[in-house]
């Protein structure tokens, strides 16, 4: 009991979020979505108060809170929406917010690539399949969640363990939450060479996350992995063509 009193600040957003997700999951009887939405907003505010304290930089804080809140809320809406088309669209919103967080992490190339691959290709093909397969707007099985109580309880126990470990974590190399470097984000040479093609990091002018630094690392340190990834892509293409239904077997 003493432990839970001491850690009630972490438990509050967890319990609120668990209630919100469990309340909003599709059930047999329709529930008030307003109450679930209020619970979710309360969970986000409690999370901000306990785990995500603001820093001095106003613009950075605002952008981080905006992207993080949009990502979490639209992810919750995605897993609770009864209509699969809307769920896919909420997933697109989540992808865009995560790309905003990538931008805050000095990864502009990665943000652009993720938007192109996910929002441009994956979600569009998923939407095509949903619209081909489900001509009727709503199906019976979309409005019945599988054991919502057990699933949400287990997932929030996992989330609580993760958050508790993060709170108790002392940081890497004894650095507790050292502030990030200000200004450009340049590579630090640690003297480690992955293979014979590896090259030392470039001069301190080029920012990490630019295509130049990424390409040098990708095609020198990770040359074999890039070749393997290309092979995996080829095999996946052949497999998808082989598995997909033939026209002679009839279309959808």
């Amino acid at each position: 009991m003493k432990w839970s009193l001491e850690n009630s600040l972490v438990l509050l957003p967890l319990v609120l979020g668990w209630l919100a997700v469990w309340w909003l999951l599709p059930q047999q009887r329709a529930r008030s979505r307003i109450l679930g939405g209020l619970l979710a907003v309360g969970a986000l505010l409690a999370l901000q108060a306990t785990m995500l304290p603001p820093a001095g930089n106003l613009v950075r804080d605002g952008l981080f809170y905006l992207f993080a809140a949009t990502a979490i809320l639209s992810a919750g809406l995605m897993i609770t929406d009864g209509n699969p088309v809307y769920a896919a669209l909420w997933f697109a919103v989540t992808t865009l917010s995560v790309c905003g967080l990538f931008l805050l992490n000095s990864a502009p190339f990665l943000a652009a690539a993720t938007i192109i691959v996910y929002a441009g290709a994956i979600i569009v093909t998923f939407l095509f399949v949903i619209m081909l397969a489900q001509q009727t707007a709503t199906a019976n099985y979309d409005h019945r969640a599988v054991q919502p109580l057990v699933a949400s309880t287990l997932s929030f126990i996992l989330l609580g363990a993760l958050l508790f470990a993060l709170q108790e974590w002392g940081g890497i190399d004894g650095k507790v939450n050292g502030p990030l470097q200000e200004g450009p984000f340049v590579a630090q040479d640690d003297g480690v060479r992955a293979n014979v093609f590896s090259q030392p990091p470039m001069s301190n002018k080029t920012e990490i996350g630019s295509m130049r630094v990424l390409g040098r690392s990708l095609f020198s340190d990770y040359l074999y992995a890039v070749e393997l990834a290309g092979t995996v892509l080829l095999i996946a293409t052949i497999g998808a063509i082989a598995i997909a239904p033939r026209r002679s077997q009839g279309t959808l």
Partner: protein
Amino acid sequence: MTASSLESQLVVGAILFALGMIGFLTRRNLILIVLSTELMLHGVSLNLTAFGRYHGNPQGQVFTIFVLTIAACEAGLALSLILTLYQRRKSLDVFLWSNLGEDDLPILSGQSTVPQTKLADPNADLPHLTPAGRAPKTPSTKT
């Protein structure tokens, strides 16, 4: 501690992962199950870029590019599998595939308690003969 420091990003990544896990466990639509795994991959990618930023090396972003590659492969394969499954049962319900045995085999485990959706035509993919012509006379009508 800054708001976009390592820990805050890790918190957001963990929440996205947990929400994706809930979606994976609770949804019955095959496509939404695959989309939930993509949500979990987003949480992992966020962690990787945050660690890359923290340590000042491009490795986190390179790993995220590989995650993106594998996610694309996975989506393509999953969609072709879903199309094949949909062609056989004409439904995206995952519970229709809880029993992979043949229809005439005895059911060994208990039936699931969740009500099943009605099949459109379970034998639609099997070949069948069209009845044509006059019905043959049976021996009883001859006498």
